[in-house]
């Protein structure tokens, strides 16, 4: 697996394009059931399939929730609630609408942001976010080394795409996606004109979108 670079881009896909769902899911062990297999088993009410899906993705979903709520105990509670919701809402999942991981992430993000708002914890979370940003524990602003890229870790490759953005664009996307902020809220928080926030979001998201498509071609 190699990092996507302009010089290594593949442009050889032939034939009529089908509806694309670019996915950069981590690779599975040989013989392991696919995410879709597990979702279909969950739809058939197989608890073991949920247990497998939990083992596969609890770390990613917990990281996402933590990024929103910035509180370990709240994140654990939400993680449990979200997997329960996955069980309860599995019948609403459609493979035509996207990949299981994308569906779970969308559900988890929405639930985490709702939880944050319901508990009116914005002020506390902002304070923690501020502290964590100052300490830079796991910030998006991360320069992937060549050694990391050679290791082929999906996370590192995605972060390389994201870290290629100017910090202001990363910040705008971070606040929108992980904190659920509107353009106006971002403008107020960063003391930036609304039009500039919109431009940062549009440019940043397009670059990530394009970068991920190239990455997917390489994987």
């Amino acid at each position: 697996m190699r990092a996507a670079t302009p010089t290594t881009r593949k442009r050889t896909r032939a034939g009529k394009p089908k509806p694309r769902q670019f996915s950069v899911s981590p690779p599975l062990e040989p013989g392991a059931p696919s995410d879709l297999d597990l979702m279909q088993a969950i739809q058939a009410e197989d608890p073991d399939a949920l247990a497998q899906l939990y083992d596969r993705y609890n770390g990613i979903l917990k990281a996402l929730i933590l990024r929103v709520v910035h509180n370990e105990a709240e994140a654990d509670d939400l993680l449990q609630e979200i997997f329960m919701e996955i069980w309860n809402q599995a019948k609403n999942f459609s493979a035509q609408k996207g990949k299981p991981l994308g569906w779970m992430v969308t559900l988890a993000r929405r639930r985490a942001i709702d939880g944050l708002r319901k508990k009116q914890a914005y002020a506390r979370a902002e304070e923690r976010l501020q502290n964590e940003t100052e300490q830079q524990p796991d910030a998006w602003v991360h320069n992937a080394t060549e050694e990391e890229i050679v290791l082929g870790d999906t996370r590192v490759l995605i972060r390389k795409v994201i870290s290629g953005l100017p910090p202001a664009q990363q910040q705008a996307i971070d606040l929108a996606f992980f904190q659920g902020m509107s353009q106006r809220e971002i403008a107020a928080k960063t003391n930036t004109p609304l039009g500039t926030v919109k431009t940062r979001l549009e440019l940043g998201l397009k670059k990530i979108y394009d970068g991920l498509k190239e990455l997917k071609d390489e994987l």
Partner: protein
Amino acid sequence: MSFEEFKKHSRLYVIGALESEELEEFERARAKFGKKAEDFITECYGLHEAFALSLRPAKSSAAIKERLMAMVREKKGT
């Protein structure tokens, strides 16, 4: 709204960053472009997956899984 403009809005839409006045215009364009629009929005949701995968996975306690599975089995049994 042109389809190129719609694509820009779609990327904002999937992360919930469209303002209410933009949302109305977006929904009109979505209806106008039909399946092509739905396919593009679906594709954009791949951004969610990528943002989550960009994070370092976090550890959670085994007790959560035990509680979850107990709840699921109880629900299934009822």
